[in-house]
């Protein structure tokens, strides 16, 4: 049974997003995604300052099995990336919603978060 925290928003492509009150958000991949991928061996991070549209590929997560594109759930500018994943990508397996976060974003339109799935809808999507 996958862990789906109630306070996060989700994309169907298995990224999670945690909005903050200052118009920024933290993004990672879900517990379901890390479990499906298996041992994560590499995370390709975007450059800070890059502006992405909603649904755009912002990076790649590789496991022993496969390489999978990462899609940004909403539009925004990358303000920070988790460089600790360069040397310890397995952190995504170990703590997908905590130390395994991937990037922080300045949202282009903070309201766009409302268009994402809530925990109940995401649980249904992966059931």
């Amino acid at each position: 049974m996958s862990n789906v925290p109630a306070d996060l928003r989700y994309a169907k492509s298995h990224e999670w997003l945690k909005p903050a009150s200052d118009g920024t958000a933290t993004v990672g991949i879900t517990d379901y995604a890390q479990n499906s991928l298996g041992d994560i061996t590499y995370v390709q991070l975007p450059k800070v300052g890059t502006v992405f549209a909603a649904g755009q590929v912002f990076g790649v997560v590789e496991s022993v099995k496969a390489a999978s594109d990462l899609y940004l759930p909403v539009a925004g500018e990358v303000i920070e990336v988790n460089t600790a994943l360069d040397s310890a990508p397995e952190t995504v397996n170990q703590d997908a919603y905590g130390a395994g976060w991937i990037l922080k974003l300045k949202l282009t339109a903070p309201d766009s978060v409302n268009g994402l799935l809530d925990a109940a809808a995401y649980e249904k999507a992966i059931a």
Partner: protein
Amino acid sequence: MSELKRTPLRDFHAAHGARLVDFAGWEMPVQYRSILEEHKAVRRTAGLFDVSHMGEVDVKGPEALRFLNNLVTNDVAKLFPGRVLYSPMCYPNGGVVDDLLVYMRAPEDYFLCINAGNIDKDIAWILEQAKGFDVQITDRSDDYALLAVQGPTAVAIVQSLTGAKLDRIGYYHFAEGTVAGIQCLISRTGYTGEDGFELYHPAGDAVSLAEAIVKAGAAHGLELTGLGARDSLRLEAGYPLYGHEITADISPLTAGLGWTVKLAKEAGFIGRDALLAEKTNGAANKVVFFKTGDRRIVRADTPVLGVDGMVVGKVLSGTLSPVLNEAIGSALVTTAASAGPLSVDIRGTLINLQLVKPPFVELKKPSS
């Protein structure tokens, strides 16, 4: 989707938390908790693999030796009771039908272990080649289950379950005996590059044997290990896998398995003329092994680039070496380009392939 075949241990795997996948038509455990951790456990202590999907074939009769020596490229005449031989089995054009193990139980009594995905093809091929020879070929694949205990503590684990004197069984030798009270062919072989045993036993006894090994192995750090770790272990050891480093299009000589091709065998063998020509004229392509110094896995079929950026081949196998913590792999490249430099393009990043003579890590196999 056709129904997947199951080994007698399918429910045992599920009960132990395995992730089961379709492997060559078989529902097999790819991993239990982590491929990387299972891999390291085999190098550090021991792992238990279910390889019951492999095929087994009895070859018996007055002309068994003559038939087998015509069938495979290595020299079966070197065998004696209790000795095992690794050999490719080739088509007339030198391509590989399969690679297999030949066990000699007694004069006129041999036993083959063949790859799971090739069982039907191999049996048909072997029966076709047997015409005119006084031999009986019997597919025993459904009768046997096969468990592999591999790693530095494998001997201690298996020894705790058997009265057979394991220290007298050399590498690529075998004995018949009981393990945990179950009749086994105890073979000091494996495909991980570690010391260990492969235990052929009646399919109906597989769960009992697996449970006994897990129990005995607990004190020796044994872990259940899946096919994911088996693949990274064999690649780290530099062993070929059928369908990757050897195929119907990649001969044993191209694959660097010249030591298994006995061109001087008196009576010849299937594929000899083609392999002799390849040896004489030089092969067009060569299988090379590489590491990258980078964690990005270079996956099978990735084009390999030569000195001028032209495509000179393709990747055959690629994984992350959990021991080296970098990507390793094999590639088929033109002989002219095989000395390098070689590179691959991974999503816009050019990564240099550092050519390596395998094994990638120091192996601790016993002497034969």
